[in-house]
């Protein structure tokens, strides 16, 4: 068979089209997203949380479990779970006539474990990524401290270790590593506790039961039931990051 220039170009074009189509619509991408396994999420009942304004038991439990230091210089602060003014936590929420109690208060915030996390997309070493169960995970061994993720996160959930955190830890929990100077860290959804079927440390520590941890993939789960029956907001939904932390207002 003699392949002329004409038929060669035709076949090359068809081949390129096929390649582009397979890249654009990878087989099984939808299946992977729907495919089994839990999708962890958290729900915060802001009313219950605000009843105890001075309470910081969740943060204390978290910081103790994960060796989060208390640093003297606020510019070096390492944050896993903290409180933010309502207007800073929900800057695009129009709240002129909202209850003063809410708008003048501080909201509990931490990593949103977004469904479409911008932080993981910019990491040049794949030191952070979204797991199938929704946890935005970090590999501190691989982090080179470039801080792209810090810049990419629209919620300020990521902190850089400017100084060695060890000397600033009152008690070191030996079962969990500390971090070292030059890596980025944030809330991990207590991924080390999940295989043991334990809730995150903050949820466990909350006496007001203002925090709920659950599986969004299970339609019968408690968190899905609350989301069905009550109105919940997420932080900065307009950015399209699809946070997995819901706030009942």
């Amino acid at each position, binding site marked *: 068979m003699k392949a002329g220039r004409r038929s060669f170009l035709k076949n090359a074009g068809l081949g390129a089209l096929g390649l582009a189509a397979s890249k654009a619509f990878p087989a099984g991408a939808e299946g992977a997203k729907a495919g089994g396994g839990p999708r962890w999420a958290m729900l915060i009942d802001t009313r219950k949380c605000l009843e105890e304004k001075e309470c910081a038991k969740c943060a204390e439990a978290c910081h103790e479990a994960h*060796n989060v230091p208390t640093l003297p210089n606020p510019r070096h602060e390492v944050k896993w779970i903290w409180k933010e003014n309502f207007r800073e936590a929900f800057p695009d929420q129009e709240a002129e006539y909202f209850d003063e109690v809410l708008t003048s208060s501080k909201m509990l915030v931490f990593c949103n474990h977004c469904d479409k996390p911008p932080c993981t997309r910019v990491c040049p070493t794949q030191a952070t990524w979204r*797991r199938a169960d929704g946890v935005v*995970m970090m*590999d*501190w*061994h691989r982090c080179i401290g470039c801080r792209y993720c810090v810049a990419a996160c629209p919620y300020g959930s990521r902190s850089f270790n400017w100084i060695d955190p060890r000397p600033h830890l009152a008690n*070191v*929990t*030996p*079962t*969990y*590593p*500390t*971090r*070292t100077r030059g890596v980025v860290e944030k809330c991990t959804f207590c*991924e080390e506790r999940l*295989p043991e079927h334990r809730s995150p440390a903050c949820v466990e520590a909350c006496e007001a039961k203002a925090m709920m941890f659950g599986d969004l993939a299970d339609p019968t789960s408690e968190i899905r039931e609350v989301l069905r029956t009550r109105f919940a907001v997420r932080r900065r939904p307009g950015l399209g990051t699809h946070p997995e932390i819901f706030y009942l207002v």
Partner: protein
Amino acid sequence: MYDGGKILAGIAIFLGLVLLPVWHNAVVASAPRPEVKTPTHEKHCVDSAAVMRASHMNVLDQWRDAVVREGVRTTVTPTGMTVSMSLTKTCMNCHANKKEFCDACHNYLAVSPTCWECHVEPKGSSS
């Protein structure tokens, strides 16, 4: 050969200085091989002593990747034990004294792994 004596003397001095560590070890006894204390209450490690001696760092690297990146936390070892893939919870549960176990060899070989910059050595191991 012009200035042969000076050249040969120069070479001799040069070799004498460059090979000083070799002469030093030849004259003075070389540093004693480290003695590591193995735990008495547990007979088996996660692999044979020869494998652990030669490639414990590779085992730890595989464990690290399995736990952190794949979310797999336990493994069945070649010696038939089911263990948690953890430096602090498994390895240092038996080899509790970092100074006497880890540091003994690492110092002898002048290697300084960065494990303990983050991972916490068990309490009381520094005594």
